């Protein structure tokens, strides 16, 4: 049986110095930023804010300088991320490009693709979305049916992507399409493409979620032409790329900090009261213990990434435990404050109202709890 390795990791001095810079920046930039907005954290979209981060060199931090990156360590980047998330900064616009599309292009893209996209992602000007899921393909990603058919020097695409976060505002989708159907080899006939979203034939329809917001989308492709220069990696070779991409998607601190701004508001509200029941204190303390431990685990994953290891399994552990905690915090606020949270009420009430409604998604997006536990079970040698 393999046991999971979470080696302790010390953040380097450069990261600690950076932390104060980021804190100072966020303190002035987010002064007066409402709790409800902070509660969105990495779902909050603000192109101007992303551009400002780009100017400071806080996007594409680990990438080579020739592509607009800053050649800093993954641990420096980690500190920037956790400061952004704990402060509830609106980072959604550049988040996906920085987190996974950029690294994917560095690993598998052509020189021309890197030059075309990476510098503008790093400047906080070019925004990406992830086109994996489809109406009939969620957990079972290898079943995607949207087809890209070769025309010789290009591809013609037909089908529908679903749940694509931010597609209505992004510039580019990195999409997974079926390029061949072979009996018994579902993983073999898949290819990834860079699709500029203003290409003719693409219809993007925002889908309202249960909280009333429209954050994800249905994206329909009708005879969309994409030149072969937009293919990422090998034809039919996308499965291993997608797996690597999902590892980036699952390994960051956003996987346990989505509700952190509400947790901070809750503690602040308690702080303002003269008395607390021991139950209040115990419940807050228990959540603090879990947060502190998840952070240690998450920093450890960052350390392994920095050392060039592949902590996909450990990242799944953090995402699964993290989602459980994230989903508990809105309920904790409901329990401890013991009042209904009204929309339009402002302050912590509105932040809590938002997160109560959004919590179900935390164990779905980026891979469901069941799929993650399956991955962990495989790591234990059970399957």
């Amino acid at each position: 049986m393999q046991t999971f390795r979470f080696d302790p990791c010390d953040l380097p001095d450069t990261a600690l110095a950076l932390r104060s810079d980021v804190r100072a920046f966020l303190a002035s930039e987010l002064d007066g930023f409402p709790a409800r907005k902070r509660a969105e954290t990495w779902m909050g979209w603000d192109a101007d804010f992303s551009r400002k981060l780009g100017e400071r060199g806080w996007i594409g931090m680990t990438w080579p300088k020739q592509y607009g990156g800053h050649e800093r360590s993954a641990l420096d980047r980690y500190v920037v991320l956790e400061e952004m998330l704990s402060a509830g900064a609106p980072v959604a616009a550049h988040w996906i490009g920085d987190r996974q599309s950029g690294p994917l292009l560095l690993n598998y893209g052509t020189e021309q693709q890197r030059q075309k996209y990476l510098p503008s992602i790093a400047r906080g000007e070019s925004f990406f979305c992830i086109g994996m899921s489809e109406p009939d393909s969620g957990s079972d990603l290898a079943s995607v049916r949207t087809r890209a058919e070769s025309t010789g020097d290009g591809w013609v695409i037909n089908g529908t992507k679903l749940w694509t976060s931010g597609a209505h505002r992004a510039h580019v989708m990195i999409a997974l399409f079926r390029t061949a159907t072979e009996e018994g080899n579902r993983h073999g006939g898949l290819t990834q493409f860079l699709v500029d979203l203003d290409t003719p034939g693409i219809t993007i329809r925002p889908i309202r979620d249960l909280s009333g917001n429209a954050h994800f989308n249905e994206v329909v492709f009708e005879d969309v032409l994409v030149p072969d220069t937009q293919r990422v990696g090998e034809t039919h070779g996308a499965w291993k790329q997608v797996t690597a991409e999902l590892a980036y998607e699952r390994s960051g601190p956003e996987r346990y900090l989505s509700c952190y701004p509400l947790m901070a508001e809750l503690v602040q509200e308690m702080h303002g009261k003269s008395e607390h029941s021991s139950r209040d204190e115990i419940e807050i303390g228990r959540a603090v213990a879990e947060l502190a431990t998840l952070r240690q685990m998450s920093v450890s994953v960052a350390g392994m990434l920095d050392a060039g290891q592949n902590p996909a399994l450990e990242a799944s552990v953090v995402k699964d435990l993290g989602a459980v905690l994230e989903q508990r915090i809105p309920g904790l606020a409901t329990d401890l404050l013991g009042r209904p949270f009204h929309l339009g009420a402002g302050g912590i009430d509105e932040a809590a109202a938002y997160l109560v409604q959004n919590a179900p998604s935390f164990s779905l997006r980026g891979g469901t709890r069941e799929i993650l536990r399956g991955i962990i079970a495989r790591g234990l040698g059970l399957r």
Partner: protein
Amino acid sequence: MNELQTMLSDTANRLFTDHLQKPVREAAEEGQWPQLLWQAVEENGFGHVLVSEARGGAGAGWSDAMVLLRACGTHAVPLPLAETIVAAWLLDQAGLDVPEGPLTFAQSDLQPDGDSVVCTVPLQAVPFAAQCKHVVAVSPHKDGVRIALFVDGKSSNEVTTIARDPVADLTYNAPAVSHGIAQLPADTVLQFGAVVRAAGIAGALQAVLLQAVQYAGDRVQFGRPISQFQAVQHQLAELASHAASVGVAVDAAARAIEANPRTAGFDIAVAKVRAADAAQIGASIAHQTHGAIGFTYEHGLHFWTRRLWSWAPEFGGAAHWAQRLGKEAIKGGGKELWTTIAAR
């Protein structure tokens, strides 16, 4: 793991695998002191791992000692090894010599008596009290804590824990053999007791995980190993995640103690909350996976699960430590919380 840790880990695993077979465990549970096992532990200097080299110890740090403290759980060691490691460390911290033999420690009320100190109240519910000739008593002092070594106490109220480890009260009529002051927190006994129990839990969770995974692969029902059932897989994945989480939390606590034993309270509290909560979840999943056979004395899973249940509330349970964390967090306010978490 560094070189010393690898060495400690290899030695401990070999020693416990060789010397700690089922009859030894069963005899220990019947109240028989496992002399041969203790001898082997003592010959390897395990109990004095945290004692400075000047006083004849290994001079190792808490992160190194963690290897042994976790091994106490992984091997369900029926000895006061964790107690000895802490007690010896306390003596060393107070500049006192460390005697041979098993040691234990307890909260006390120590009062000066001429050049010496006396213990005015019985030491209560002391682990392995009757088995340890020497006991380290600790009480608050204006410069930290007063630490005193007592010999030949009179034990009363002898009971056993759920783990079948002996516990008793101790009274002393004679003054301390030696005493000194250590710059440690006023609640030293609670804090360092809690962290060694958390470490034991981390080790025991690892052990029950291993046993449950192994068993699930071997046990066939409906024509296939039960490990093929997704419900079973997911339970074990949950157990594995909790085991990993406790391991991380106790390592962080060890590092914090190493950096400064006076300011490690937050990290120790985090470790004990996580450990105590995970102990309950882990024991429950391990038993569920084993079905009825795991409920028998014969099978032996209980050597570990009874320790999980026993250690979870010892030196403060999840609620006690969570309340401390919660109080601190609320006192500090919303801004302070992240600063505290990210400072580690």
